[in-house]
């Protein structure tokens, strides 16, 4: 329930921001996709389970205006068992992200991710509402930016597990935009600590390196208001 409230609050915030800052240009759509090399590690007290795999993701985003954007994303792939892990895990994730850019160098981000790990013996569902910020560092070469972001997942919920005591994610990447195309390479790390210091302690971490390409549409041309339209 808490996650749903957070999601509603984030959506309301995004709509309010959109309404307040009247857009100077029309919405722009972007579609992107990429390849992610994922590394999942978990220790439930029986030793480290380590699995890696390749995931594919798709993303559709709408820049409502220069400051507000909303994105829908999906990711899927298989993490194959490494040392200590016995079964492969199918990973699927869907999410809705919203971004507000109060300054050109700062993004305030929020959203909801739903992730599932599926093995032949069961499925685990993760609800990951998140709220964070990302700094953007423009370099001398036009279009080249560094991105450093951190997000908290205060209302993260995992099926079959207590709420994590620590749920945080970070990402660092380089992004280059030329015309409608944007290419980025991003390193991300999610850390979840459950019941630390107890016999039920569970430590989980997912890190990835992703290479993505986005294509953005041109802003639609707005017709000049006709002289009689206002009368």
């Amino acid at each position, binding site marked *: 329930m808490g996650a749903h409230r957070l999601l509603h609050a984030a959506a309301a915030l995004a709509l309010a921001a959109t309404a307040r800052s009247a857009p100077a240009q029309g919405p722009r759509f972007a579609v992107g996709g990429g390849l992610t*090399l*994922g*590394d999942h*590690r*978990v*220790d439930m007290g029986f030793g*480290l389970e380590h699995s890696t795999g390749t995931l594919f993701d798709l993303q559709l985003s709408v820049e409502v205006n220069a400051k507000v954007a909303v994105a829908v994303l999906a990711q899927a792939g298989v993490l194959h068992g490494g040392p200590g892990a016995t079964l492969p895990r199918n990973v699927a994730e869907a999410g809705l992200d919203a971004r507000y850019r109060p300054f050109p160098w700062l993004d305030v981000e929020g959203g909801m991710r739903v992730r599932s790990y599926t093995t032949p013996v069961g499925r685990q569902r993760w609800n990951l509402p998140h709220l964070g910020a990302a700094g953007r*560092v423009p*370099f*001398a*070469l036009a279009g*080249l930016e*560094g991105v*450093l972001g951190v997000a908290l997942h205060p209302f993260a919920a995992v099926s079959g597990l207590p709420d994590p005591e620590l749920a*945080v994610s*970070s*990402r*660092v*990447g*380089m992004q280059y935009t030329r015309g409608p195309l944007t290419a980025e*390479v*991003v*390193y*991300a*790390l999610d*850390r979840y*600590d459950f019941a630390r210091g107890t016999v039920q302690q569970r*430590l*989980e*971490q*997912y*890190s*990835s*390196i992703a290479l993505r390409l986005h294509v953005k549409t041109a802003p639609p041309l707005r017709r000049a208001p006709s002289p009689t339209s206002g009368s």
Partner: protein
Amino acid sequence: MRRVGLAAGTLLLLVRPAAAQDTTAVLLREARARYEALDLEHALPLLRQVVSPQWAFPLTLAQRVEAYIYLGAALSLVGQPDSAVAYFAGALARDPFTDLDPVQFTPGQLLAFAAARRSVFGVGARPVVAARADVRTERIRFTVATTHRAALEVLLEPVGTGIPRYRVFSGESEGVRDVPWDGLLAEGRLAPPGRYSLLVVATSLSLGRTDTARVFFQAAYEMVALEDTLPRIPRRALLPEYQPVRGAGRELLKGAGVAMGALLASAGLANHHLGAGVRGGAALVAGAGIAVGLGGFVARSRQRAEIPDNVAANRQREADRRATNDAILRRNADRLAQTILLVTPAAGVGP
């Protein structure tokens, strides 16, 4: 016998070794005085002596012409018109500028002189008079003469330059004529400095004979002082137009920040119990950040920012210099246009 004695006596009186040239002049003066006193009986022998081949003293062309004139005039008075015409013709042949003053000579003498003019043909050119002329408004004047009506051509010929002759005058002429020259040669070019030959060619319209005369002169320009244009402003005298762009170090910091963020995310935020995860991915992003930071540092270090005020000031200085030079060039052009041609007679005569 009496004449010879008179002449010898006169010679003894007048001839002095130290003034041989004066001897002829003194004798001519004596002869003229006797002619004017109508003592023709004594004047004629004196004049004949002067023009005689036996005359041992220097005799200039002008003295010879004067002697011929007075011989002709005296003979005309004593009733020997043919001889008078012959002497007048001799004078004209030697100096086509020769003429009789109608106030001083009788109509009979003038008639005989006119007959002499018709019988002989000659052309002459006076030595060029030294002159200084602004060729835009003034003219150099040559004086030429023909003994009687003739087709006359006055030509200018630069000596030794290969420049073709330039016709200054062409037409019919009789007697003395002033020929003006504007200092230009063919195609309107200003006559270059140097030595020139003035060639006068005339063909008698009655006798069909042709005669030429030539005098030389020297042409030069009066040098005018020109202003020098201002030289190009040396670079060291100009204000610096560029300055290094700031922010090169900031690029390094940005790159280091990205690299630090990647390392912090992979090592600092990661659970040490679980390990670092895709550490190669963090290293990749960190390396990209470092590389981009270094590249930005190098690029920024090479960039230079324009200093608009200095650029404007330098351009203004250059514009001022150009304007000054344009004015100097205009003034110089005006001075050069005011070319003063100096003409001086030069040695050498020719037929």
